[in-house]
């Protein structure tokens, strides 16, 4: 097990797993977990209030975020396949 600092989502205070850490929703660097991000986007669709980054208030670009997430998953899969014996070291790309 790699000894990493267990980060918590600032909104729901749950521990963020690998999927949550790969989510890079905003350019200002404010990271939230996937569930909270989904809650924010869902509330935006229902009541059209929100859909913004809690830190800098910029509107979330849903298409870009989803694309980034898929790209990170592909990267993860490739890394895992290449080094099956060794534990993969994830390197997230900032697009």
């Amino acid at each position, binding site marked *: 097990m790699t000894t990493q600092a267990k980060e918590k989502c600032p*909104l729901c205070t749950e521990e963020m797993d690998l999927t949550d850490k790969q989510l890079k929703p905003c350019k200002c660097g404010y990271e939230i977990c996937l569930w909270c991000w989904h809650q924010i986007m869902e509330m935006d669709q229902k009541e059209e209030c929100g859909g913004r980054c809690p830190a800098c208030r910029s509107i979330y670009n849903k298409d870009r975020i989803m694309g980034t997430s898929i790209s990170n998953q592909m990267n993860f899969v490739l890394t895992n396949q290449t080094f099956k014996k060794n534990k993969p070291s994830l390197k997230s790309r900032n697009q």
Partner: protein
Amino acid sequence: MEATAKYNRGNPAVKRILQEVKEMQSNPSPDFMAMPLEEDIFEWQFAILGPRDSEFEGGIYHGRIQLPSDYPFKPPSFMLLTPSGRFEIQKKICLSISNYHPEHWQPSWSVRTALVALIAFMPTPGGGALGSLDFKKEDRRALAIKSRETPPKFGSAERQKVIDEIHEQMLSRAPPVPQLLTNETNEETNQLPASDASDEHAHKAVGGVNTAGSNSDSVNNDLPRPDSESEIVQHIVEGRTEGVSNHSRANLSRENIPRVAPTPQNPVVAIQKPKHDRLLTLAAFGLTLAIMALVIKKFFKINGLAGYIEGKF
């Protein structure tokens, strides 16, 4: 520990609220105090101190916060219980942090940030907002002094117990109302807090204008030139016949001379250009012949190779 075990930890809102309770207890603030009820963690009782250098200084104002079930994705509602001259009591107040404006709420805010904002809103004018009042300074100061004496009475016995507990702790912290400085503070003018301006970045695309000038030279034939010259001369004569004088006649005679001089030069230029064009034409024709010759040679070579291959098979 026992109290926290009651709540449903599976609910994300509950977990967030419990986190805030711990944070409030571990890092208490001298300006406010807040704690939830034991029965309902979504209802908090709070008390704030009046902001310094204002007519609310020294006052202890109690209130209640009702958190929504979707917290922190929905804003809470606020209700003041102590009369202050700024907010109505036992009525939900309209602020940018309250549930009247869910579009302004941010999930990253918390009870702590909300109370800090509430303290900052005290000296501002009400502006006719829901739950806001605009009392005079003297009345507000009197209410501030009165607010320290007894805590407000609200709700059930458990709520009253929490309110009394908060009031005692706030009394121990709060400095007394500055009565001696009454005259000086009246002379001072209240400075409104600066509003945060939001900057919008506009992307401007400046398109460059390209100017393309094309000049085309045309060679005139020799035949129509004498006609045009005669026409020009006729116009001059017609224009100047109105004012008959010796000077005008002299000008006419002088102007005629330079017009005649360039005429013999033009045929020379005209003669030279056809020769140059002919040379270029001959060169182009020669190049075309050379290209045709090369193509024919390649064609014959290909046929030769084909014959050679066919011969082998």
